[in-house]
């Protein structure tokens, strides 16, 4: 028997496969297709303090091996997530979940973190620092070491569960941002979020997305994500959840070799809703073939 278990801080996962925030809703649609309890965990759609409709349509554009989204954090707000979505998910998924939270100010992050920290089926809090920092002029929190540290410290102060900071890849030096988060007390890191991108409709001569720009994800970004996970893992001591373009079991192995303790699967869910299941089913055989007995042994082995 191949051992697929892995650990994120105090959270033990049956396997490293976690659907990524924003690509799995709150699980109910996917539960029509398969028993979600085979998953390592689930990262829920990013939650903000108040309900958000998000950006205007179109919100989706396509590219070679990728999808660009400008959903803009549509979510029902923290109260509804806590009172409705999370209990609902608890009925179909009997393991701790990852609560992904977002904010447009430090106070909003703190508010959301404090609220989800008390929820029993939340095992880990993932703090998405890729939202534009409205107080600080619109660039994302996640591109600035000090802002990342500030958010991390503030969130740590009000929580007891492991805090994972989800980093933006749209930066010159991912390593120094990762280190800032670590020094500020982050228990782990999630990377990467989407790459800032856009498409133009050559017939209308206008950007395809109503929001003009959006985030690129999918297989296209895998080698960039892998590079960042590799660099960050080498530079920090806290665990890293690796994501970005993972679409097959081989990619999971590669991402773990780069240093990921677990992985998230995003865009691939959209085009193949059974992808997480297929990967989990394929992992033992692949490990066997590669001479891996305990999957967590290979974390950062490259």
């Amino acid at each position: 028997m191949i051992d697929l278990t892995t650990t994120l801080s105090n959270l033990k996962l049956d396997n490293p496969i976690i659907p990524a925030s924003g690509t799995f809703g709150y699980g109910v649609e996917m539960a029509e297709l398969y028993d979600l309890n085979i998953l390592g965990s689930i990262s829920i759609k990013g939650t903000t303090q108040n309900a958000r409709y998000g950006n205007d349509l179109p919100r989706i554009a396509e590219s070679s091996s990728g999808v660009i989204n400008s959903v803009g954090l549509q979510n029902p707000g923290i109260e509804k997530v806590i009172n409705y979505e999370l209990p609902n998910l608890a009925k179909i998924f009997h393991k701790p979940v990852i609560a992904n939270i977002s904010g447009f100010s430090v106070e909003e992050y703190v508010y959301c973190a404090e609220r989800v920290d008390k929820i029993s089926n939340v095992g880990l809090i993932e703090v998405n620092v890729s939202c534009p920092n409205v107080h600080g002029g619109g660039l994302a929190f996640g591109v600035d070491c000090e802002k990342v540290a500030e958010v991390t410290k503030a969130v740590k102060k009000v929580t007891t569960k492991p805090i994972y900071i989800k980093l933006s890849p749209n930066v010159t030096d991912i390593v120094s941002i990762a280190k800032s988060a670590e020094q500020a007390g982050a228990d782990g890191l999630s990377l990467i979020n989407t790459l800032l991108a856009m498409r133009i409709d050559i017939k209308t001569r206008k950007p395809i997305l109503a929001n003009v720009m959006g985030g690129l994800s999918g297989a296209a970004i895998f080698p960039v994500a892998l590079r960042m996970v590799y660099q960050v893992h080498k530079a920090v001591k806290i665990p890293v959840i690796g994501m970005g373009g993972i679409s097959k079991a081989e990619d999971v192995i590669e991402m773990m070799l780069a240093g990921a303790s677990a992985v998230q699967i995003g865009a691939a869910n959209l085009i193949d809703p059974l992808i997480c299941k297929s990967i989990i089913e394929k992992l033992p055989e692949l490990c066997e073939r590669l001479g891996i007995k305990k999957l967590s042994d290979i974390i950062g082995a490259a």
Partner: protein
Amino acid sequence: MRELVFTIQKNQLIAKHMFNFVLTGDTSDIMKPGQFVNIQVPGFFLRRPFSVCDWRENELTLIYKVVGNGTEALSKMSAGQELSILSGLGNGYELREIKNPFIIGGGAGVPPLYGLAKRLVEKNITPKIILGFNNSDEIFYVNEFKSLGLEVTVTTLDGSYGVKGLVTDVIDNCEYAYVCGPLPMLKAVHKKVSDGQFSFEARMGCGFGVCMGCSVKIKDGYKRICKDGPVLNYSEILWDEI
């Protein structure tokens, strides 16, 4: 919803840029006309959504228009080739017990209305059909609707066939309409009818409700075109915002 493999049986040009696409496979997930399927076209990242035009056991008919690279690639595929399809998506039209509804379609919006008309006829309802096209080159399925024993009015923008003008020019005294077509047509039609069901399009990430890529505001919150739609009710639509 299920992820299934279908085999192409026929892929035939039936009007300008318009293909009749018949596939063999398990259609048991399709419950209602107006539902759609999401096709993985080889070489493209996202799936392409197409309304179910008609279906029976083991046979699915779609009609698609070549508008971009994905549909272009689809048009080059041939009988025997297999496709991964997510079947049974969306809500579809609810078959209301209204005696003489209108069915109003435009261009690439016509396909689902055929499956709808057929099923209304099976329920002894006699819809009045209004179909709008740009010109005579683009007309398709008029005879198929007629074969159901229905009265069909065709409009063309340039008058090259049927009535010259828009579908809205021939809608008269319509209490209830089943509608599918481009957004400007839907908006124009809503002003000419008292009630009805309207099928919308949106660029989709997933097609089954998990990504919020297709979410539109409605009077009471929002709906995902892919999961809570594509068919929305007249009364819930925010006509000025959509």
